[in-house]
């Protein structure tokens, strides 16, 4: 399928992926605007995580196109997609437990990404300043020299968000960023999300409708790999189909 160029940051058109005949994502199209916060909701197995996997190149699409700033992502490798400006946070916090918070952030700093670059990488003022700035933002400035695996669950989630922020991506994708967090952590996270989404587009997968309503510009409801409904949180909440398959439970 060919698709035309658009003004959207992300344009997903006719996206399909099948695993052994099972279509986890089926002819999906949606568009994300500049500086938009898009929340994807849906019951388990609806294909939410798969959509993120497809965008960031972790899973290869069977059909369809994904354009990021009019650049086709489906043919690109993961690291190229990242370098193009797409950041991805995983469902379970993925940080490096053997490294300190500082080193976790430093590795994510977008410089010296080639073999030679990594060998000659220097911890200069720019790096230090960026790490300092981000660590404050994610509430970890006191813990810079703590090993990653000693952090609490919520802190790990923040750290991973911080690792994305230091890359300064244009599109940020977060998979259940508040899952497993305490109420106070959740509040802080919502605040964090609001600050970090100022200059970028964000796609969030989330279950908690209250949290969704709090942050979302637009909500997409997925069901069995297809879009069930799309619109503002209020609009979606009142859609009878959505109530039946999802909210009713």
């Amino acid at each position, binding site marked *: 399928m060919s698709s035309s160029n658009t003004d959207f940051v992300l344009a997903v058109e006719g996206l399909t992926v099948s695993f052994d005949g099972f279509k986890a994502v089926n002819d999906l199209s949606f568009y994300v605007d500049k500086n938009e916060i898009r929340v994807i909701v849906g019951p388990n197995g609806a294909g939410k995580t798969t959509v993120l996997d497809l965008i*960031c190149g*972790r899973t290869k699409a069977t059909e369809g196109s994904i354009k990021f700033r009019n650049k086709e992502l489906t043919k690109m*490798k*993961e*690291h190229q997609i*990242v*370098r193009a400006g797409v*950041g*991805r946070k*995983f469902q379970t916090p*993925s*940080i*490096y*437990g*053997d*490294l*300190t918070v*500082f*080193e*976790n952030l*430093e*590795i*994510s700093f*977008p410089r*010296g*990404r*080639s*073999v030679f670059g*990594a*060998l*000659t*990488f*220097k*911890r*200069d*003022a*720019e790096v*230090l300043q960026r790490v*300092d700035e981000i660590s404050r933002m994610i509430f970890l400035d006191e813990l*810079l*020299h703590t*090993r990653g695996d000693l952090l609490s669950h919520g802190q790990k989630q923040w750290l*991973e968000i911080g*690792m994305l922020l230091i*890359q300064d991506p244009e599109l940020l994708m977060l998979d259940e960023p508040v899952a497993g967090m305490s109420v106070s952590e959740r509040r802080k996270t919502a605040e964090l999300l609001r600050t970090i989404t100022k200059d970028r587009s964000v796609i969030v997968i989330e279950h908690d409708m209250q949290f969704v309503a709090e942050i979302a510009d637009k909500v997409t409801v997925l069901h069995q790999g297809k879009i069930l409904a799309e619109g503002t949180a209020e609009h979606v909440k009142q859609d009878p189909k959505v109530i039946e398959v999802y909210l009713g439970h």
Partner: protein
Amino acid sequence: MSYANLRTLLPKNDILNFAVLALILVVVLPLSMDLFRLNLIGKYLTYSFVALGLVLCWGYGGILSLGQGVFFGLGGYAMAMFLKIEASSPENTAIQSTPGIPDFMDWNQLTELPWFWQPFHSLTFTVIAIIVIPSIFAYIIGVAMFKRRVGGVYFAIITQAVAAILTILIIGQQGYTGGVNGITDLRTLFGWDIRTNEAKYIFYFLCVFMLFLCLGVAQYVRKSKLGRLLVAMREMEDRVRFSGYDVANFKIFVFCLGSAFAAIGGAMFTLQVGFMSPTFVGIVPSIEMVIFCAVGGRLSIFGAVYGALLVNWAKSTFSESFPELWLFAMGALFIGVVMAFPDGLAGLYSKYGEPHVTRLLDRFTSSKSKTSGDSDLPPEMEAEGGNS
């Protein structure tokens, strides 16, 4: 290089480690051992090159190669080919039907030196070949495997198969390679007899020097961002990938580096032992080399050296007194290290010895606050140069 930079590269504990190892290898052993034993130590040290490479590949990169013997062998054969050509001068081989070619070629009806032997007339070429050929070979394997994300057990088995293939080839093509006997009876280097006592001392120290060179490179890699990336990859490969790194390239690099180390070890082996044979290429020696690394501690570059020395020394003495028990001991060592001491000797040291040593070090040096542990970098936030 600025002071801060140097200190990042060489924390105090590592300076101590380098110093102790240097003291042992350069002073203690040569003074306390007769030449025969020292030559043995030199031979064991050649295995520590391989173990050192495995620390980087396996310990840091999480890539277990069961075919490091291939690279050890390639390096060793390259060296042996050069020496054999010299040993096969027309005067030395006058009784052959074709004088001037290695004896085994003559027995196999070859009448001239094969094309791939020709460049080994040159020592310069040989020295380059020792490092470059195994690296290219590793690069090919690495690209094919890592670009397609083969890893873990699959990679281990495939490297094992490569070792099997190379062994069969070397043994089968005896006219070109010396077959199962290997390349033997190496005598001189530019007319200088390499079998004399003096030569053995020189080669021992050359070997130690090369080892320190490799240790230095390994230390640099380990302390660079690449070293931290390897640790990160081992834990969360996907996260590294989604931080914009092409993970395969780093694996390929470290695999090539490990192979180059192994090859240097092989060349040193040939110089000190005086021959090279396919027995070092095969599966069994390749796996044994992994155990040297595991015993020393798979995360410690110094551990690799001690591990290789200790296991081989134990093998020699054990097999002298209790030959039947040796395999039991070796088997138990494999199981014990893996199950009880996965971090090997270095793990034991950093748990029980290092804290004391660090305290002592701190007392003797008027130091600021100091972090312990290996993977940690000093917390100092000052810049390492550049525009600060």
